[in-house]
């Protein structure tokens, strides 16, 4: 299927079924009214009478045995309601279910450390007090005595049999370990003109949403119901974990997610804290609130997976990549909160955007004495894509070819779409080479090269780096069975409910939470589009509430899935409601349902022009129903579940459709590197993005820019760096350097629109392409410093790393004195 060609920025929307087309319009978001006036309701804004607050006591050690915990003094402090240690909590809850196959499924993971601490910042005890200040005062007085153990600080050493063991119960630091093999890898290497060996490291960082994790639990002893407010963005996916740990049936737990101040995947790891406040509320009989501190988030929230690759690439001398083989070590931190999912999710992009057929990767997922990992603007994929982009650069450099040409030679071509990769994943459309060309045009590459040359003669070093990436969305949960065939989940689904009340007003609610992607706006646009309304006239329920919102076991806002999965559900529900309205209207207007057009809040007969406002339809159906035949369906509330046609991948050959859609992006960076200081000045940053049809292009653009900036800052500023002794060095915003308005240039974005051949409405997910910036910037810095012949293996480039790589090197083209 060929790609639709549309000029950038012009938006092709699917033709509206009826009425005015709201899908595809950059309308201001509905949410922005409350957010600009200070009336957003984030978790800490939720106040319940009599709420107690908690403060956590954290481990200052990376690895230690807890010898004793003395809570006497803390318990006696004013305002303190209770102090619990990990041992106390262990008696009240069950350990969290583990996703790993044996033996790592025997890991005992509780809300507070039990017996041992395994990373700096791990909570070991909790104080519950009347207010936050008093809780903090008492937490300081909890005395914990430790026997310090040697920490294991990198995955490769942790995987070695002689390493100290974190979880003695399983006797190994391996979470999972296995080989993915596709094609004839050794055959590819036998044909190679050149074999490139490299080691790459993808560092730890997170996207640090501005609102911190938080949870508020209120247990009603009268009804036995727990109301759990959380800003976890896949609360119902967490529900089985939370309910089983609390030993509560799920019908006794109501989950409410108010406005969420950003997540970027970082907020799905908060379930231990959700369980903690819940059990405390159940014990104390009053609401209990936790609001995380920034230092807690940085140390014990979540980090993206840190990965080391030892890799070989088989290459033909024309730049064709024939195959890759090697090992990947994933440093997953101290507990496997969703791991080893990271050991398989990368396989959604196993071959990236490239046509080569042969890959063998031995994947090691390993415990270390660091913060547990989780998604960060995508889960496990940016790491793998980084590898590909750096390999493409290496191929070009080693063969003396242009880095862009090498990519083009290896890209899957537009006329091959939809393209099935050797592991069974299907790329659902796009023109990768054209996006690359467009980025080169936007950057005006020839003039950049001339400028580069002129500047070099003056001892200044300009460089350009271009990288490409896939942004997959709507994953198939069955992929986890590749690593653990017995896990009881598979597929993917999302639910939406659209309903009309007796005044003819239309409401919508869906499963995914809203953390800034404008879900209420997008839902209103789709529903308005289908029902011939103005989005202003569609009431989208804010946030998520398990009492009022529909959901499935996959519900949540993660994996770029809302536009694709939520969009599919919204579309299905809105269309079914439209059909029901048409049937009723047709009866009242004495015409056929197909003759009824919904437009401007009316149901109108195309034939006669007679019309009824929706309020009449709602009024009759719900309040005056004897006007309608008894066998006519007057239910104007439609819940629809959207399910993509997935199959269960085989755990034998590890092949299958791992995900539904693939957006793609090409990013270009222009940098100037100060060779004396190693500081990188980012001069320009451009991105071409293709996520298929866009429901609200301004929202898409915001996602693309925001993601790019997270990638830029990850490459240049943000690193969750640990010292050799296991201490987290970047433990506050003083050292964890989120980009300010002065650190990033205005990112320039253009959109291609190739409607997806897989997703509903031709849309693909978007928002996780930011990882593209890491290889783009590494490439740009190398390009700038190419006269010095320095290369970088790390995804994070500090001035000092660059400066020390430069030390003692002179440019090959000497600059004039």
């Amino acid at each position, binding site marked *: 299927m060929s790609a639709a060609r549309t000029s950038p920025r012009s938006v092709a929307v699917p033709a509206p079924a009826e009425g005015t087309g709201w899908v595809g319009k950059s309308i201001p978001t509905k949410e922005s009214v409350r957010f600009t006036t200070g009336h957003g309701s984030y978790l800490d804004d939720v106040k319940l009478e009599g709420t107690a607050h908690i403060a956590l006591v954290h481990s200052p050690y990376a690895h230690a045995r807890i010898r004793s915990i003395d809570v006497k003094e803390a318990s006696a402090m004013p305002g303190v309601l209770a102090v619990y240690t990990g041992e106390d909590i262990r008696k009240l809850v069950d350990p969290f279910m583990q996703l790993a196959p044996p033996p790592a499924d025997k890991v005992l993971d509780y809300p507070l450390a039990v017996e041992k601490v395994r990373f700096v910042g791990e909570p070991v005890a909790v104080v519950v007090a009347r207010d936050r200040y008093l809780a903090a*005062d008492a937490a300081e007085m909890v005395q914990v005595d430790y026997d310090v153990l040697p920490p294991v600080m990198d995955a490769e050493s942790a995987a070695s049999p002689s390493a100290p063991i974190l979880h003695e119960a399983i006797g190994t630091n391996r979470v999972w370990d296995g080989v993915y093999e596709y094609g004839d890898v050794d055959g590819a290497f036998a044909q190679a003109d050149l074999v490139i060996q490299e080691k790459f490291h993808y560092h730890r960082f997170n996207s640090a949403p501005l609102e911190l994790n938080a949870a508020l639990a209120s247990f009603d002893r009268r009804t036995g119901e727990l109301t759990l407010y959380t800003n976890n963005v896949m609360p119902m996916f967490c529900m089985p974990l939370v309910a089983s740990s609390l030993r509560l049936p799920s019908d006794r737990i109501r989950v409410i997610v108010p406005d969420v101040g950003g997540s970027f995947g970082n907020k799905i790891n908060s379930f231990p804290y959700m369980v903690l406040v819940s059990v405390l509320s159940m014990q104390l009989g009053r609401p209990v609130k936790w609001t995380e501190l920034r230092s807690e988030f940085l140390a014990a929230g979540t980090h993206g997976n840190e990965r080391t690759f030892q890799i070989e690439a088989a290459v033909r001398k024309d730049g064709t990549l024939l195959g890759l083989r090697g090992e990947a070590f994933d440093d997953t931190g101290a507990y496997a909160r969703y791991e080893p999912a990271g050991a398989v999710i990368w396989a959604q992009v196993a071959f990236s955007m490239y046509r080569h057929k042969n890959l063998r990767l031995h994947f090691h997922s390993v415990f270390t004495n660091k913060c547990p990992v989780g998604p960060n603007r995508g889960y496990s994929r940016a790491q793998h894509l980084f590898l590909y982009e750096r390999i493409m650069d290496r191929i070009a450099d080693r063969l003396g070819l242009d880095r862009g040409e090498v990519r083009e030679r290896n890209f899957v071509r537009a006329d091959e779409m939809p393209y099935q990769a050797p592991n069974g994943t299907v790329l659902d459309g796009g023109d990768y080479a054209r996006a690359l060309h467009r980025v080169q045009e936007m950057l005006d590459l020839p003039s950049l090269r001339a400028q580069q040359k002129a500047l070099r003669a003056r001892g200044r070093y300009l460089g350009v780096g271009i990288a490409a990436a896939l942004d997959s969305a709507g994953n198939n949960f069955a992929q986890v069975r590749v690593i653990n065939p017995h896990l009881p989940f598979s597929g993917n689904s999302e639910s939406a409910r659209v309903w009309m009340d007796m005044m003819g007003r239309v409401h919508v609610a869906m499963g995914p939470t809203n953390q800034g992607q404008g879900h209420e706006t997008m839902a209103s646009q789709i529903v308005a589009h289908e029902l011939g309304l103005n989005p202003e006239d569609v009431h989208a329920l804010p946030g998520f509430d398990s009492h009022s919102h529909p959901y499935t076991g996959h519900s949540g806002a993660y994996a770029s899935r809302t536009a694709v999965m939520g969009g599919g559900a919204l579309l299905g529900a809105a269309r079914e409601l439209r059909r029901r309205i048409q049937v009723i209207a047709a009866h009242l207007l004495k015409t056929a349902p197909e003759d009824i057009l919904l437009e401007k809040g009316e149901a109108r007969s195309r034939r006669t022009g007679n019309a009824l406002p929706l309020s009449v339809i709602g009024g009759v159906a719900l309040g005056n129903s004897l006007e309608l035949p008894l066998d006519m369906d007057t239910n104007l509330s439609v819940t629809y579940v959207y399910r993509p046609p997935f199959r269960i991948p085989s755990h034998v050959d590890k092949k299958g459709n791992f995900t539904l859609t693939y957006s793609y992006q090409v990013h270009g960076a222009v940098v100037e590197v100060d060779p*004396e*200081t190693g500081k990188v000045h980012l001069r320009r940053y451009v991105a071409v993005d293709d996520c298929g049809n866009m429901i609200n292009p301004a929202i898409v653009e915001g996602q693309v820019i925001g993601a790019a900036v997270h990638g830029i800052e990850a490459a240049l500023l943000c690193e969750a760096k640990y010292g050799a002794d296991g201490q987290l*060095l970047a433990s506050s915003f003083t050292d964890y350097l989120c980009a*300010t308005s002065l650190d990033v240039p205005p990112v320039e974005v253009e959109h291609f629109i190739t409607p997806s051949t897989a997703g509903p409405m031709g849309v693909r997910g978007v928002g996780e392409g930011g990882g593209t910036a890491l290889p783009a910037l590494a490439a740009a810095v190398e390009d700038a410093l190419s006269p010095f012949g320095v290369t970088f293996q790390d995804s994070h480039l500090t*001035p000092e790393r660059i400066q020390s790589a430069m030390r003692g090197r002179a440019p090959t083209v000497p600059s004039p004195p």
Partner: protein
Amino acid sequence: MYPRPFEYRAVTTVDEALRVLHEVEDGKVLAGGQSLLPLMKLRLASPGVLVDISGIPDLSYIRPQGENAVEIGSLTTHDTVAHSALLQERCPILPAAARGIADQQIRNRGTIGGSSCHADPASDLPPTLLALDAEFSIVGPKGSRTVPAKEFFVDLFETQVQRDEILHHIQVPTLGPQWGWSYTKFNRREGDYPIVGVAILVRLDSHGRRLEEVRIGLAAVNPTPCRARAAERFLQGQEISPAILKEAAHRSTEGLHPGSDMHGSSQYRRDMVQVFVRRGLEEAVTRARLAGGNP
């Protein structure tokens, strides 16, 4: 985070401040609070009594002292210093350094006196005041005294200002047309504490060829803000040349013991001192030549 309990005492006159400081045992002066309050929130500092002097009206001013000096009240905010026309005319290095401090909100509250007394080795103003040979007027129970900058900064977070004293004002000189200056703050992210900070003042001969006087103040490379005395001595009286500036840069690391953190090792900081002393000297010389009509 949440500070430990303390007693808050707001005072409205210098005398009242001194009286309260004298009375209480564990008192600490609160000026703008932009360094102290974060430390207290993190519970890395927990004074028993906070004596808030920010309400004293007559400590916030910038005024000429004759032709040759400017007096700056200790409660003058960084924002006021950054926008002072008088300082811009007479002592432009100081507004330049102040403009780079943190961000607008912090500059709106942080004060020159607070920053000086906090004596964070990585602050921007202390090395600048050192290079200016500023004078610090301190008032205490025994009256007032004036301390030259080179004696003011005693050790890590420690100055001549004793527990029962307050810094009243700072006097900086008017820089004549022979003077050139530069303030360079090198960091990974704008507004942060520098990896190294370099304040430079040079005075040229009337031809703009020879360095009559050089003063180099450094931040973030020693337990206190400090001067690169060896480089200064070396440059005095020298004819300006790239080789001389480079040699001076080399000598500017003499006696430095920078600490290491994740943004820069001790060695890296030493390297950066050399880079920015050289560049800062070039910039200052260019400025002096322009100002002196010898471009």
